[in-house]
């Protein structure tokens, strides 16, 4: 891992203009990603995780979407948000590529899968047509598709769900991108197939030193593959840290409830699941204070009025919650509290 991060996102804000008003989907996201690292973005649907990924790839159509002018996405020092169309084309697929959740919708049904892999190589002038064809077959073999020569001539509908997802990975990795964005890559798949895909992403990452931005809501997958984790709620990062920090010494009530809302397969006693009552806030008119205040068991008066500051616990581990403020009442909570440095 080099010191200079490959990708740096600074204060990303994305809104959508709708008839009902402006939906503030992403409200100030900042993070960085280094080569060879897996960063997991965890959150519920509607928290803005997919929108941020699409913003990184320049896939949001503006309007109705608006990326606020102060937002910066720096890839090797260049702000991608100021890219012209030609620069985007050179960036997408070659430097940074994406695996989508629904492979059937993302693949072109009228082209053989081999052609779809070749397309990427040819567009980026990385190979001649015949070399691209060879490479496409190699890629299919790399992602574990049996009989790759024959399969390359088949169409997406002739593949099963897991196989289609492998094809998508093959397309995404054909040009050796430096960043791979995986937007819920296994959500639609069965667990046995999910295990295959996760192992594949891990193995390929080791081989190609790709930085992976994994977007998911499945904490089990995250425990297996992530190095660092961002917990996102209502368009904001509520907690971030290394995998072990998030799993074993989390500081935010939302992270705590999220981890306890899923039953553990390896535990025998049946304890009641922690359910987070209510629903996430409406982002057309986001609450003034902490976005989680309405669903939080330890909500205080200040939580509804003022946004909590970021509190740092170790380099890389920080959280936004008023409970860590020195003046907060001395309540017993099931997660660790206090002793952080206010930023």
């Amino acid at each position, binding site marked *: 891992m080099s010191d200079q991060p490959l990708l740096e996102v600074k204060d990303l804000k994305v809104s959508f203009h709708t008839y009902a008003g402006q939906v503030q989907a992403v409200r100030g996201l900042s993070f960085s990603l280094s080569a060879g690292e897996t960063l997991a973005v965890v959150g*519920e*649907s509607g928290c803005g995780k997919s929108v941020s990924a699409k913003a990184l790839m320049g896939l949001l159509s503006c309007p109705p979407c608006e990326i606020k002018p102060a937002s910066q996405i720096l890839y090797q020092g260049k702000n991608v948000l100021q890219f012209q169309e030609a620069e985007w084309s050179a960036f997408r697929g070659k430097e940074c590529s994406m695996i989508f959740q629904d492979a059937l919708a993302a693949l072109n049904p009228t082209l053989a899968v081999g052609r779809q892999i070749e397309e990427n190589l040819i567009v980026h002038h990385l190979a001649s047509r015949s070399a691209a064809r060879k490479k496409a077959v190699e890629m299919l073999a790399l992602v574990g598709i049996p009989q790759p020569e024959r399969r390359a001539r088949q169409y997406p509908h002739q593949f*099963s*769900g*897991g*196989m289609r997802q492998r094809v998508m990975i093959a397309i995404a990795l054909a040009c050796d991108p430096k960043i791979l964005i995986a937007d819920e890559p296994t959500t639609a798949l*069965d*667990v*046995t*197939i*999910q*295990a*295959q895909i*996760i*192992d594949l992403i891990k193995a390929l990452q080791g081989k190609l030193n790709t930085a992976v931005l994994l977007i998911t*809501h*499945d*904490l*089990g*997958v*995250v*425990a*297996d593959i992530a190095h660092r984790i961002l917990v996102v709620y209502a368009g904001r990062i509520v907690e971030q840290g290394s*995998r*072990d920090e998030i*799993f074993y010494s989390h500081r935010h009530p939302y992270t705590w*409830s*999220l*981890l306890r*809302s*899923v*039953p*553990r*397969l*390896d535990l*025998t006693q*049946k304890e*009641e*699941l*922690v*359910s*987070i*009552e209510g*629903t996430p806030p409406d982002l057309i008119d986001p609450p003034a204070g902490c976005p989680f205040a309405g669903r939080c068991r330890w909500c205080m008066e200040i939580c509804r009025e003022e946004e909590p500051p970021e509190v740092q616990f170790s380099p890389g581990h920080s959280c936004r919650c008023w409970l860590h403020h020195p003046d907060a009442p001395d309540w017993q909570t099931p997660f660790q509290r206090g002793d952080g440095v206010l930023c």
Partner: protein
Amino acid sequence: MLEPKELSLEVTELKKYFRVGGGTLKAVDGVSFSIARGETLGLVGESGCGKTTCGRTCVGLYPKTAGQVRYRGQDVHRLRGSARKAFTKQVQTIFQDPYASLDPRLTVTDIIAEGIKNHNLCPGAKERRERVFDLLEQVGLNREHASRYIHEFSGGQRQRIGIARALAVDPEFIMCDEPISALDVSIQAQIVNLLIRLQRERDLTYLFIAHDLSMVKHISDRIAVMYLGVMVELTSSEELYTHPAHPYTKALLSAIPIPDPKVEERRVRTVLEGDVPSPINPPQGCRFCGRCAMATDRCAQERPQLREISPGHLAACHLI
């Protein structure tokens, strides 16, 4: 279970075939199990293994091809007239997709009260409305929601309306067909806790179909594992997770990631190769034979029968 309990649902050698272009799709091919009153039986398996078809055939939504389903002694597929109507009151379903299974042109009151009206459970319109309000409160919604339409609700709220609709006729048995898989993690816990609470309060019997094994383990007393139309293992949920017998169950369990990095690092995983084969003309012998690491010649020839390997633990494999 120490005392013999009254049986609610009894399924013997149930088969359900569909005629498709390429031949016969054997979605359910000889499945037998029973559910005692007040019990939750979890039915798990990968997509396409026939678990939804099995559930739907059990509650009479599909005609059967062969075999028998008895609900409290009566053959579900032979019920006619008033007996059939009584059955539809006792047995209800919660569907996977609350977006597709609730009528968008009806208000919440109409949706929930439909069953009450059909079964004439509440003669007066005013009492009926009170009952709807009561049901909404039981599932954690409130009376202001009663006059709204389905599109005005979030996924979790819609699933709650689906549950209220099922509860409206005071059923004894509910077939839950993947009630939580379309929902967010934090909402899943809400719905599962609600289902567990309702079962305790009303002595309900559940057939709980899902592919999420950790959730199924949490809610079920016993679990049946299906693979390609047949049942490969059936036992109590503790036993299944502590001593899985069938190689498929073992692989399925090891594929589930555990949200704990330290546990996850120590685990040894058996990753299954390939996909589930097509249920059109499935393998002759053991259905799992093509993906099983330990398969022998016998597995390819002869179909293993479900047999008791220890008290209350059934498995279908030649190697046990």
